[in-house]
C-alpha cells in the first residue's frame, strides 16, 4: 500500500509555497540556529590537538636523535659481533613508531578542522614531518631529547633507555668491558677506583694502559674501559681489571645541568700531553701485557687517537 506522509489538501486549495512551508515548520517546531560556539569550540580543539600531536612528534624526533647519537657507533666493532645486531639496538624503533602514530593523529586532527580537508595527505603529513624534524632538532640541541628518552623512555614497558642500554653493554667484564665513574686514583697514577653503573666497584690497573688512556682516567669522571679481568687474588678486597684502553664517556645532546664527564680545558690537556714522553704516548704494550690479546686491537688504537684530544 502506498504511503501518504502528508495529509491531502482540499482539491481547490492553492499549493503553499515551499519557502513558506519551511518558515512555518521553523516557527511551529521552534527551530533555532545553534549557537556559534558549538562550531568554534570543536574546531579550536582540533587545531589544539594538531599542535599537541606536532609538538609530541618533535619530542619523539628529539628522543630518536638522542638515541642515535648515543648508540655507540664508534664502539660497535668492539661491542657487537654482527652489524645487524648493532642496527637493531641503535635504531630508535619506539620513537619512530611514536612519530608515525603522532603524524597520523596530526593528519586526522587537521582533516577535521573547518577547511583542513582541502589539503592533500602528502602535504599535511609532509609539513608535519618536516616541522617535527626541524623542531625536533632544536629540542635535541636544547637537551630535551635526553629528558624525553631518559625520562619517558624508561617508563615504557620492555624498553630500555639509550644510556641504560649502553651501560648494560659496557658492564661486561667477561668480554673485557667496564664502564662507570672514576672515584679515586692512586698517587702513582697506576690504578684508580671505578664505581660501575651496576653499583659495583673495581680496581682498575693502568700498568698496561698507554699515556692517552691514563690521561683520560685522570681527566674524565665517566669512562669506558676495554681490558682484561684479572684473576682475583685471595688478598684483594675488590675485583681487579687491567685497563688497556680507556675512553671518555661523553653523552651527546645532554640537558644543561645534568652531571657530565668532567673535563679540563683543551689547553690543560695539551700541556699534559706535551709533558709526556712522545714515544710513551703511543707506546705499545710490552710482550707480556694481557692487552696484546685484546681484539680488535688496531681499531681500538685508532679509536683512541680519534676519541681522545
Amino acid at each position, binding site marked *: 500500500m502506498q*504511503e501518504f*506522509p*502528508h495529509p491531502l489538501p482540499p482539491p481547490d486549495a492553492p499549493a503553499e*509555497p*515551499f*519557502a*513558506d*512551508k*519551511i*518558515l512555518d*515548520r*521553523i*516557527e511551529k*517546531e521552534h*527551530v*533555532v*540556529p*545553534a*549557537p*556559534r560556539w*558549538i*562550531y568554534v569550540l570543536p574546531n579550536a580543539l582540533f587545531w589544539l590537538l594538531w599542535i599537541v600531536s606536532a609538538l609530541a612528534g618533535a619530542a619523539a624526533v628529539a628522543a630518536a636523535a638522542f638515541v642515535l647519537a648515543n648508540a655507540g657507533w664508534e664502539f660497535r666493532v668492539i661491542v657487537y659481533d654482527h652489524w645487524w645486531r648493532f642496527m637493531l639496538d641503535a635504531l630508535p624503533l619506539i620513537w619512530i613508531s611514536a612519530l608515525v602514530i603522532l603524524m597520523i593523529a596530526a593528519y586526522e586532527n587537521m582533516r577535521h578542522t*573547518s*577547511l583542513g*580537508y*582541502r*589539503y*592533500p*595527505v602528502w602535504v599535511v603529513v609532509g609539513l608535519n614531518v618536516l616541522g617535527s624534524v626541524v623542531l625536533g632538532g632544536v629540542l635535541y640541541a636544547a637537551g630535551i631529547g635526553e629528558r624525553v628518552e631518559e625520562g619517558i623512555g624508561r617508563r615504557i614497558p620492555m624498553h630500555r633507555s639509550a644510556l641504560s642500554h649502553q651501560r648494560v653493554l659496557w658492564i661486561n667484564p667477561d668480554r673485557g668491558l667496564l664502564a662507570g665513574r672514576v672515584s679515586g686514583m692512586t698517587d702513582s697514577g697506576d690504578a684508580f677506583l671505578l664505581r660501575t653503573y651496576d653499583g659495583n666497584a673495581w680496581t682498575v690497573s693502568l700498568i698496561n694502559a698507554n699515556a692517552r688512556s691514563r690521561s683520560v682516567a685522570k681527566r674524565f669522571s665517566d669512562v669506558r674501559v676495554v681490558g682484561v679481568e684479572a684473576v682475583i687474588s685471595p688478598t684483594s678486597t675488590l675485583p681487579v681489571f687491567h685497563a688497556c684502553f680507556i675512553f671518555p664517556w661523553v653523552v651527546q645532546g645532554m640537558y644543561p645541568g645534568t652531571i657530565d664527564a668532567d673535563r679540563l680545558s683543551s689547553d690543560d690537556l695539551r700541556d699534559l700531553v706535551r709533558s709526556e714522553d712522545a714515544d710513551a704516548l703511543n707506546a705499545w704494550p710490552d710482550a707480556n701485557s694481557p692487552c696484546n690479546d685484546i681484539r680488535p686491537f688496531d681499531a681500538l688504537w685508532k679509536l683512541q687517537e680519534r676519541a681522545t684530544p
Partner: protein
Amino acid sequence: MDDRLEGLGDEDVVRESLRHKAAFGVLVSRYQARLDRYLRRLGVGRKEDREDLLQNVFLKVYRNLNGFDPRLRFSSWIYRIAHNETMSFFRARRVRPEPTPDDADELLERVPAALDIEADANAALDAIRIRRALDALEPKYRDILVLRYFEERAYADMSDILRMPMGTVATLLNRAKKKLKTIVAAEEAATRARRRSEPLL
C-alpha cells in the same frame, strides 16, 4: 524585505537570516528547484521523498546557519548538507539510489563529449545506454559525475561539497569516467552481439 534581499549575495542573506527568520525564505526559494533536481539526479525518485528530504535539508541548514564558514561558497555548503542528508536517507531506508529519470536530452548533451563515447546512430539508444551505465555505477562514482556533468560544479566546489582534497576529486572523477566508459562499451558490445544473432527478416 524580500525585494531588498533579492539583490544580495547568499552570504549576506545568511547574515540577515540570523537576524530575521523571514529572510531565510529567500535562500529556500533560491535553492529549492536546484536541490530538488540534485536529489533527483542522486537517485531519489519519488517526489514525496524528495520533498521530505528537501524540508529536512533546509531545516538543517537553518539550524546550522552559525556554522556556515564564509570562506566557503554558500552553494557548496548547502549542496554538502543535501548530499549528506541524501546518503543518510539511503542508509536509513536501506535502499539503493533509484534509476535516473529518462532525461535523454540532458544525458546526451552532457555526458558523451566529456567521456568521448562513440555516438550511436540512434540517439534514444544512446541515452538508454548512458542512463543504464550511470545507474550501474557505485554511488561514489555516480555522485561525482552528477556533480561535475549535471550540476556543473567546479573542482573546488566538489572538494568543499564532498570534503576531500581537489586531487582526490580529480582521481575519483577519472575513475568514474573510466568505469562509465567500460560499462557503456560492454553494453554496446552486448547490443551488437544481440543484433548479429537476430534472424534477418
